[in-house]
């Protein structure tokens, strides 16, 4: 059994309110599966399961306030995962639970006037996260009527 505590959601807030549980006691969950939606003062967050296993207990009902660090859910983790766990937090699955600060966009520059446009080599490509270029002036006027081509 492992109990997952409400993590710091990164807004300097100390509590969150349960909006909806996405699992019930007895459900089997895979690591990364959505567990619960919570509301903070300014945003809504979906919290994924850090482990694979069977949900054993939900520690807060819908609408309840939970403090950061308080018990959220207890999971009977699968044996393989528990054995390999050795008291450390399992690593987040890449792409599912990116750690805070591991930014996925390098940033295309600042918004200062006259800063050069992002080089083409840094251009976002399919499958990745990018930024809208900050300082490229529009290269053409916005069409006020639907284009004719296509």
């Amino acid at each position, binding site marked *: 059994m492992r109990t997952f505590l409400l993590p710091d*959601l*990164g*807004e*300097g807030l100390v509590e969150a309110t349960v*909006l*909806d549980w*996405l699992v019930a006691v007895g459900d089997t969950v895979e690591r*990364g599966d*959505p567990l619960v*939606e919570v*509301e903070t003062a*300014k*945003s*809504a*967050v*979906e919290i*994924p399961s850090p482990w694979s296993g069977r949900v054993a207990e939900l520690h807060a009902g819908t609408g309840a306030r939970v403090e950061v660090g308080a018990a959220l859910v207890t999971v009977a983790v699968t044996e393989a995962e528990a054995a390999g766990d050795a008291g450390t937090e399992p690593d987040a*699955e*890449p*792409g*599912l639970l*990116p750690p805070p600060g591991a*930014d*996925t*966009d*390098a*940033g*295309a*520059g*600042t*918004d*200062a006037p006259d800063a050069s446009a992002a080089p*083409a*080599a*840094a*251009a*976002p*490509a*399919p*499958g*990745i*996260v*990018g*930024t*809208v*270029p*900050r300082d*490229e002036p*529009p*290269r*053409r006027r*916005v*069409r*006020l*009527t*639907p*284009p004719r*081509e*296509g």
Partner: protein
Amino acid sequence: MHRPALPTDSPVPASAPASASTSASASAELPPVLLLHGLGSDHRLTFEATGWMRALHRAGRTLIAPDLPGHGAGRGPASHDPERYRVPRLVEEVCALLDRAAPGTAVDVVGYSLGARLAWELAARRPERVRAAVLAGFGPRAQAGAALVAQTASTLPGNDPQALAACVEGLAADPFSPEPAPRAPLLLAAGTRDELAEGMAELAAGLPDVRTLWIEGRNHVTAVSASRLKSAAVEFLASARPRPA
């Protein structure tokens, strides 16, 4: 299939669809999904923390998730000039991003709040760029609530209150108009307690190809993470069949 997000300076992953490919196999694949976040937010708060990126990754979708100008932490000073945030300019910049990230492709779009407004403009004015779109947390009078949203968002870590104020002023210079309406299939969705979505039903009534979804009990802040909204959007975008032009 999961497509982990990568830094922009990484080479294009081998699993990414070849750009501008017209092969049959590529055309059978669903296009990338462009995610446009809300005012005073960024792609992380609107789409990552809420589980949207996870849900779309799990559906095998490739994502393009920019941070709009004046938004997103850690990218240097943002402009305090309202002209920087005019709607046509933002739409044009999103198009420029698509020109590089998905050249020659009509993408699917998910927009929340301000992002939905931009998705509307993109779909209406650049129809060759949008295959189908989900517009959530949005209504024809959403602009009226922008200042309050920006005021609330100004207290979030990393946000620049002056940049957000300039953004609100810039956006206000381009009031929403239901004409021209997008031809692409649209899913309009909002929480039943979302005041910014007021008028969504009447907006939907004037559209050629639209579905609507109300999330019971949710407001502008809490509707975005609703699992029902995400699952409906994933299904809608997987099954959308644009009408022949």
